[in-house]
């Protein structure tokens, strides 16, 4: 294994063939977001995520250079077969492996949003914006067309004729040109002119761009109007507009309206960060049901089941394959799950501490059968310790129940123990042992994936930090002894995760606006979850890591508080919106529970490690908005009433 490069931190570079490396690192699991039940073509697809969610990576797969590389190499390279198969299922290749898609990727940079703040009138701003966007779309589609058709760009564009349908494209500056090369030349000139206008630091309202405020380019490339070698083009045209969050609200609104209202003649995909949404939209996110577009939220897609774990594992494998040199490419093989020896030694003592507590706190007779079962347990020291902690939790539970229903001190048999014990209790037991005896908890590939909160950039960051320790072990193995293990122990993993969590918490000061306020809010949520997790009977086992409000109360935030700066809940609504857009809180909408619908806000899992919380999805507490507001205040006394256990 190479130790000079950390594959989780390295970036594909142009020097070594960016396209090849991109394909090498691409995990086909991401293609599962295109649900078979949802239409993919002839409808606008809107893809949203937090920063680092993987939007651009997904879009780049469909660009001509990548599709052609996959086509040419899929028979020789094993890792391409799965990507190829999935793309074929989406209708991207025909039976002869020819791409059936002419896709173009158009990222929005700040040159568009700059227009909004120039000292020119609003009409001029719109003219420049639409003119530049139309020009970019046309140039980009022409380029992709040449790539897919294996033509010289731009020289061979002469072979393409574009006949406009005035009913669709309306009055536009290209109405009298139908030769592909002439259209290209006109667009190049126009593009340069507009960009120099944007950069012109003494720009006035008088400019020479066309005055259309429509995306005629999306109607220009109707397949039947594109004639190549005397025949209409049969490939689907796809325009992928990326980083729409970089536009101003006006531009974004106008762009969306233009696309969705006018139903473009080509396929359009839009990718943006949650940050692009207005505060109101962020809080309303997920509620939109529309026949005109399909909404895909990447993080929410990954959070269902173990999709993300699978995806992250495959990403890690592809990264490790670049440096493995014959050694394992499975990240989990480097993350040991066997608890370190030094814990084994003290585990006996800890078990004894628990036994003594049970003896002194509870009726020995009642629980004698349960205790006997544990005394007879056969396993190593750590497993035994966990078993005894489980027992302590269950006895606390039973004890609490008996007191509530004024039960007599009955004798409890073995079956009643099995009946109450479950995987949640085991998870809680391990978490409690981590808290009380510092037994490692945050380790192993499953927990590492969960800590990533369904965000691939976060996963790479965590894995990168762990890999540093792996490469140190590799160095020791090379220099000291071949018998040394390269994998890192649970203790080391747990320590590194805690260190990274602390760093991320500190980084928030730099990364997030109004971080003091945000930190207080998150801190109070974290402490609240902690308080409800660490109850002796682990009633919320394995613990809670989220809070929720009813959908009716969420409507108050969305419809009133966020719009009215004087509203008593305005600050709360704003704080929640910032937390969502910066991926500090993860949300679920319309979650049905006990006849009510709620919006759940889960802590980003990386911060769960800060408060010693479990990483599973599920347990949360519903609170009232006024209680939420208290979370904005430092030193909040956590409100224990009005809580609905879910």
């Amino acid at each position, binding site marked *: 294994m190479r130790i000079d490069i950390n594959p989780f931190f390295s*970036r594909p570079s142009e020097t070594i063939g960016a396209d090849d490396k991109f394909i090498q690192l691409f995990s086909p699991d991401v293609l599962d977001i295109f649900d078979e039940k949802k239409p993919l073509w002839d409808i606008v697809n809107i893809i949203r995520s937090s920063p680092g969610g993987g939007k651009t990576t997904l879009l780049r797969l469909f660009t001509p250079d990548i599709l052609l590389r996959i086509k040419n190499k899929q028979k020789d390279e094993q890792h391409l077969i799965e990507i190829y198969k999935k793309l074929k299922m989406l209708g991207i290749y025909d039976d002869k492996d020819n791409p059936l898609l002419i896709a173009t990727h158009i990222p929005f940079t700040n040159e568009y949003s700059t227009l909004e703040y120039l000292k020119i009138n609003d009409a001029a701003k719109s003219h420049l914006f639409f003119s530049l966007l139309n020009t970019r779309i046309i140039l980009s589609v022409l380029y992709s067309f040449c790539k897919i058709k294996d033509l010289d760009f731009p020289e061979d564009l002469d072979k393409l004729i574009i006949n406009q349908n005035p009913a669709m494209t309306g009055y536009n500056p290209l109405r009298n040109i139908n030769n592909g090369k002439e259209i290209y030349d006109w667009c190049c000139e126009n593009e340069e002119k507009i960009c120099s206008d944007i950069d012109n*630091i003494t720009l006035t309202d008088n400019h020479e761009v066309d005055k259309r405020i429509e995306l005629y380019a999306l109607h220009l490339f109707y397949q039947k109007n594109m004639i190549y070698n005397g025949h209409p083009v049969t490939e689907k045209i796809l325009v992928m507009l990326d980083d729409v969050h970089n536009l101003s609200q006006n531009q974004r609104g106008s762009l969306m309206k233009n696309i969705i209202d006018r139903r473009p003649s080509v396929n359009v995909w839009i990718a943006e960060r949650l940050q692009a949404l207005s505060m109101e939209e962020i809080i309303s996110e997920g509620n939109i049901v529309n026949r005109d577009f399909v909404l895909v939220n990447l993080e929410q897609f990954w959070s269902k089941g173990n999709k993300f774990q699978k995806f992250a594992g495959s990403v890690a494998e592809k990264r490790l394959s670049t440096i493995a040199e014959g050694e394992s490419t499975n990240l989990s093989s480097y993350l040991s799950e066997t608890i370190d020896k030094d814990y084994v030694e003290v585990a006996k003592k800890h078990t004894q501490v628990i036994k003594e507590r049970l003896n002194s706190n509870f009726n020995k007779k009642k629980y004698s059968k349960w205790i006997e079962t544990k005394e007879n347990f056969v396993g190593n020291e750590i497993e035994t310790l966990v078993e005894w902690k489980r027992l302590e939790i269950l006895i606390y539970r039973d004890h609490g129940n008996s007191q509530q229903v004024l039960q007599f001190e009955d004798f409890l048999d073995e079956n009643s123990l099995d009946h109450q014990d479950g995987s949640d209790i085991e998870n809680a037991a391990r978490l409690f042992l981590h808290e009380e005896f510092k037994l490692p908890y945050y380790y192993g590939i499953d927990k590492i994936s969960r800590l990533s909160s369904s965000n691939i950039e976060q996963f790479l960051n965590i894995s990168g930090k762990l890999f540093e320790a792996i490469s140190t072990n590799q160095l020791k193995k090379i220099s000291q002894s071949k018998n040394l293990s390269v994998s890192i122990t649970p203790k080391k993993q747990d320590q590194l995760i805690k260190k990274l969590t602390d760093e991320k918490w500190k980084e928030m000061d730099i*990364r997030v606006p109004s971080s003091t306020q945000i930190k207080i809010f998150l801190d109070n949520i974290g402490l609240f979850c902690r308080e409800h997790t660490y109850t002796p009977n682990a009633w919320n086992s394995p613990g809670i890591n989220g809070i929720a409000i009813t959908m009716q109360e969420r409507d108050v935030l969305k419809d009133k508080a966020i719009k009215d700066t004087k509203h008593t809940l305005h600050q709360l609504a704003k704080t929640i919106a910032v937390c969502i857009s910066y991926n500090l809180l993860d949300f679920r909408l319309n979650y049905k529970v006990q006849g009510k619908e709620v919006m759940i806000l889960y802590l980003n899992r990386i911060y769960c490690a800060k408060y010693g919380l479990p990483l599973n999805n599920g347990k949360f507490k519903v609170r009232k908005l006024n209680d939420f507001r208290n979370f904005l205040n430092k030193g909040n006394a956590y409100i224990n009433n009005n809580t609905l256990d879910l």
Partner: protein
Amino acid sequence: MRWKNYVLNKKSKDCVNFWQDYLKNSRDLLYIHGLGFDPRTLNGIKSIYGIEGSGKRDVLSVRYFQSQEEKEANITTNEVQYHEEELEKFLGSVNKSNREIVPIITRAEQKSIASITAHGIVDGISKISGYTDIIVDISAMPRGVFIPLLHKILKIIDGYTISTINLHVVVTENYILDSRIEDEGVEQSAEFIHGLSIHELAINQKFKEVWIAILGEKQLEQYEKIRSSVNPVSTCAILPFPSKNLRRGDELINHYQDKLLNDSDFDIKNIIYADEQNPFQVYRLIRNTIERHSQSLKIFGGTKVIVSVLSSKLLTIGAFLAVYETKLSEDTRKDLRIGIKHVDSISHKFVGEEDKEEILKSNELFHMWIAGDPYK
């Protein structure tokens, strides 16, 4: 190279000596400075306008507001209020002094617009034609403001032929103070400074990118954001040497190692060392780097050079001069495009109010004469 020979005064004493000598003749001065929280806000103006001499001593104070609403409500922090009162008191003792306050809005819709609105600080030649010397004090100005401001003024001066207008840049450096200033939130993405951008045009689509980054402390978040927005064939890191702390360069490599050493576009040979106190050396080194890469990459059709400054304001000036000069040649050199990419900070805070007076003793004034008489 326009700034091959240059005028640079490195220490407060040298600066004051220069200005005492310079102001023996009658000079009409316009002092442009930022009115912010930074304790160095008034150090430069007090040093220069405290020297007696004849001619105008006008002041243009730039006030920053985070939003239109903040501007309308004229929200002022205690530090700004303090500097405002101090300045008024000081200018009361200066002859022939008029003052104008120009408000600029730095953010809109959760994004920085500082580099666009900064072009409005000096809106045309009429604002500066009545002076012999323009002094821009960048001590309390963020990069997103002073780079476009200097760009605009330099462009206006270069196109003005009726008389000579001298352009000076002054900055108060204080490394202890710098370490006590903390960013409070940074923008979510890296952007080009308005007017110094590289546009992705069909005609430069195949050009290869080169990224030149001047590294400094506590900028990893910003570095990472810029890094993820570029796709260079070669990354060049500029490190400080000579420097007061001789290990500063090594410490910076340690600080950035995860994100620098794992990228195949970075080679140890691409490290450039520059004097941390000489912006003109940085200018020369960047110019040479640009030329070298532009020659090598000609075969691919052309080069896009992205410059990012994550270090002191002093070195930022050097980078700006290199980009400004190269940008002017874009009309004739179709195979070269250049721009400055950076990540704005949303706001800053000063941590260390209790020993402020002690910290301010380490202030050192630097002066750079950028345009005018010496360059005729």
